[in-house]
C-alpha cells in the first residue's frame, strides 16, 4: 500500500518523465497556454534552432495583454505600433506552428486564463503552464498550473516538458460561512495579508475547507489566481461535482466514453486522508471582512473598516522604510480611515475578476445607481463569451445606465499595456491582482478589492463598504 498523498503529490507523480538522485525532475506538460507578450522570443528561438512545436494539439494561443478594448478595435486598428507587431507576430507563429488560436476579434478571444477554462482545455489533474504568473488560476480545477519565463516557454514548445524540483505542500483551510458582502476576492486578500507575499515561496498551496467547497468555480478561480501574490508556485483546489459540471460539455472537454474514463480518473485525485502537508494555515470564514489593499504590495491589506497603518508602529527598519515609501506613493496618511479615501477611477475586469459571476455581482450593486461625479469607471469583460453572456442577461445596460464604460475583452488596465491606464496620482478601485508602483500606469495608485466593492466605490466616489448597500 502506498503512503497517503496530497492532490499535488498525485499530479506530480503522474507527470514525472524522469528524476535524478538529487531530485531534479522532468515533468510532462499537458496544456501550454500562450499569449503575445512572453512568446515572440520563444518562437524565434525555436525557429533559430530549427525545432518544431512538439504538441501543437496541446498548445493554445490568444492575444490578450496589449489588445485595445475600445470599440474601434473591431476595425483591426491599433494605435500602438509595437503592440500591433506583437499581436501580428503571435498570429503568424500560431498559424505557422498549427496551434489552437483565437485571434483578437474572434468571439472566443479573451484573457488566456479565462479562455482556457471556458473552452474546456483546462481539466482536473493536468499540468498547465503559460508565460504568465496568473496561470495559477487553473489550479481551481485541481490542475497543477503555474507561470514560466520565456526561455521555459521555448522549452515547453520544443519538448512538452519542463525541468522542475518538487515544491513543498501547504494546506490553507478555511471553514465556516462567509458573511454578507464577502467574496472569494476577500478570502484570498485575507490569506495574503496573513502569510505575506513570500509566505508561499517554495510551496504549492492547496485550499480546503467548507468555505472553499462552497465557492463557485468562478470564485475558486479568483482564489487560485492570486496564489502567486502569496509567492506560491501554484494554488490547488480538489475537483468535485462543481468542477465536473463546469467542464462537462465545454468545446474541448472529453465526450462520451472518454468523459466517463476521464471522470473516473479525476475522482481519484483529491488528497488522501492522512497525507502530509509541510505547513498548515487555518482561517475562519466568519472572521473575513470585505478587504481592500492600501499600499503597494498585495500583502498591504485591511478590512474596509480599517485605517492606514502607522510606520512608527513597525520595529524592523526595512519594513518601516517600505511602509513609509508605500504611504508616500499612495498619498495616504497614517491613521486615515480607508472609507474616507476619494477615488477617481474604477476598473472591473482581469483574470482575477473578469468572469460572468463577477459581472453579475458588480451589476447587482450598480443597478439603479450612478457613478459618482468625477469618477471614470470601466467594465472590461474577461472574454468575448463573457461579454456576450453579460449582454444576453442585460448587464451591459445596467452598467451603461449607471455611467460605466462597457469595453471589449482583454487584460486592459490590470497591467496597462494598452491605452487603458491611470494618470499620475489618480486613485483607482480595481478588481485586478497587483497594486505595485506604476502597475496601472506610472505613479497611479491602485486599491485591490472585489467587483461589488469596486462598484460601491464607483457610486460613492470613495472607498466604500459594500455591506452598506443592500
Amino acid at each position, binding site marked *: 500500500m502506498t503512503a497517503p498523498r496530497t492532490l499535488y503529490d498525485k499530479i506530480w507523480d503522474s507527470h514525472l518523465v524522469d528524476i535524478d538522485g538529487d531530485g531534479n525532475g522532468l515533468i510532462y506538460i499537458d496544456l501550454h497556454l500562450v499569449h503575445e507578450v512572453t512568446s515572440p522570443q520563444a518562437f524565434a528561438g525555436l525557429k533559430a534552432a530549427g525545432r518544431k512545436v512538439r504538441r501543437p494539439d*496541446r498548445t493554445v494561443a490568444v492575444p490578450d495583454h496589449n489588445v485595445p478594448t475600445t470599440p474601434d478595435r473591431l476595425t483591426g486598428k491599433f494605435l*500602438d505600433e509595437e503592440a500591433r507587431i506583437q499581436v501580428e507576430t503571435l498570429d503568424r507563429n500560431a498559424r505557422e506552428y498549427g496551434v489552437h488560436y483565437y485571434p483578437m476579434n474572434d468571439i472566443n478571444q479573451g484573457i488566456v486564463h479565462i479562455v482556457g477554462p471556458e473552452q474546456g482545455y483546462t481539466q482536473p489533474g493536468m499540468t498547465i503552464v503559460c508565460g504568465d504568473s496568473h496561470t495559477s488560476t487553473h489550479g481551481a480545477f485541481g490542475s497543477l498550473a503555474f507561470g514560466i519565463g520565456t*526561455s521555459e516557454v521555448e*522549452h515547453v514548445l520544443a519538448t512538452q516538458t519542463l*525541468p522542475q524540483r518538487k515544491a513543498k505542500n501547504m494546506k490553507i483551510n478555511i471553514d465556516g460561512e462567509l458573511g454578507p458582502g464577502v467574496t472569494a476576492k476577500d478570502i484570498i486578500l485575507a490569506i495574503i495579508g496573513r502569510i505575506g507575499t513570500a509566505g508561499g515561496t*517554495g510551496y504549492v498551496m492547496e485550499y480546503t475547507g467548507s468555505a472553499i467547497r462552497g465557492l463557485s468555480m468562478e470564485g475558486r478561480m479568483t482564489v487560485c489566481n492570486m496564489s502567486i501574490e502569496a509567492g506560491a508556485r501554484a494554488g490547488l483546489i480538489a475537483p468535485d461535482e462543481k468542477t465536473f459540471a463546469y467542464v462537462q460539455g465545454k468545446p474541448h472537454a472529453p465526450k462520451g466514453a472518454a468523459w466517463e474514463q*476521464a471522470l473516473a480518473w479525476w475522482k481519484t485525485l483529491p488528497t488522501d486522508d492522512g497525507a502530509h502537508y509541510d505547513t498548515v494555515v487555518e482561517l475562519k470564514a466568519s472572521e473575513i471582512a470585505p478587504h481592500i489593499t492600501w499600499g503597494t*504590495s498585495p500583502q498591504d491589506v485591511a478590512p474596509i473598516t480599517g485605517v492606514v497603518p502607522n510606520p512608527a508602529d513597525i520595529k524592523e527598519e526595512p519594513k518601516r522604510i517600505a511602509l513609509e*515609501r508605500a504611504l508616500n506613493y499612495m498619498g495616504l496618511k497614517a491613521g486615515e480611515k480607508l472609507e474616507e479615501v476619494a477615488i477617481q477611477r474604477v476598473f472591473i475586469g482581469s483574470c482575477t475578476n473578469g468572469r460572468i459571476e463577477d459581472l453579475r455581482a458588480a451589476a447587482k450593486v450598480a443597478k439603479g445607481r450612478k457613478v459618482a461625479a468625477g469618477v471614470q469607471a470601466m467594465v472590461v469583460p474577461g472574454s468575448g463569451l463573457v461579454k456576450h453572456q453579460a449582454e444576453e442577461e442585460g448587464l451591459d445596460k445596467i452598467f451603461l445606465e449607471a455611467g460605466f464604460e462597457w469595453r471589449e475583452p482583454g487584460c486592459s488596465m490590470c497591467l496597462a499595456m494598452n491605452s487603458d491606464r491611470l494618470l499620475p496620482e489618480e486613485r483607482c478601485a480595481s478588481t485586478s491582482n497587483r497594486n505595485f508602483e*506604476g502597475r496601472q500606469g506610472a505613479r497611479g495608485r491602485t486599491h485591490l478589492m472585489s467587483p461589488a466593492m469596486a462598484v460601491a466605490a464607483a457610486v460613492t466616489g470613495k472607498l466604500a463598504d459594500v455591506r452598506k448597500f443592500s
Partner: protein
Amino acid sequence: MDKFTTLTAVAAPLPMINVDTDMIIPKQFLKTVERTGLAKGLFFELRQTPDGTPVPEFFMNQPQYKGAQILVAGDNFGCGSSREHAPWALLDYGIRCVIATSFADIFYNNCFQNGILPIKLPQEDVDKLMDDAKRGQNARVTVDLQNQEIKGPDGGTIKFEIDTHKKHCLLNGLDNIGLTLEKKSKIDNFESRQHGTQPWLYAQAGR
C-alpha cells in the same frame, strides 16, 4: 547562454524589500519581440522622477557604480510577474549576479536561463555585503561559483548554497532544451504510457 564561473566586480546596493518585476522593468518596455536592448527600461521608475530627472541616490546614477555587475538587495527580490524581461534587462545592463535574502520563484528560475546567478544568503551576510556595496568602487566583490563562495573587499569569505544541477548548467553555459532533448526516448515513452491511460489528451487535432 554565457557561462558563469568566477566574477569579480563592483557590487551595487538596492536596499529595498519586495523589489517587484514591475519595478525592475515596467510594462511599456515589454512590447518587444527581442531579448536585447532592455537596459533602457531597467528600474525605469526608481532611477528617475516622472519628469525624467535622475534620482541622485539611486545606484545607476552614481559614478562609483558604473560597470557594476553584482546587485545586493532585500527580501523577496523579483516578486510578481513571470516576465523574463526582468533578467534580460539586468543582463543587458551588465548585472550577472543578484544577492538577496530571498527571491520569488519564477524570477529565480528565469535568472538561470540567462546566465545570471541569484544567491540566497542569511540576513547578516546580506547586511555585510550591503555595507560593502555602499562603499562603491572600492568594494569589489568576487563570486566564485565552483567553490560556492563570495569574497568581500576585506578578505572575508561567505559560503553559499546552490542546487547542483543549476550550478552545473551555469558553470558550463548549458542549454536546457539541448539537455532535455537527450531524454527524447523517455518523453516518447511517457507519451505512449499516457496515451494508454488518458487517451482523451490525445484525441483532438488542431482547431
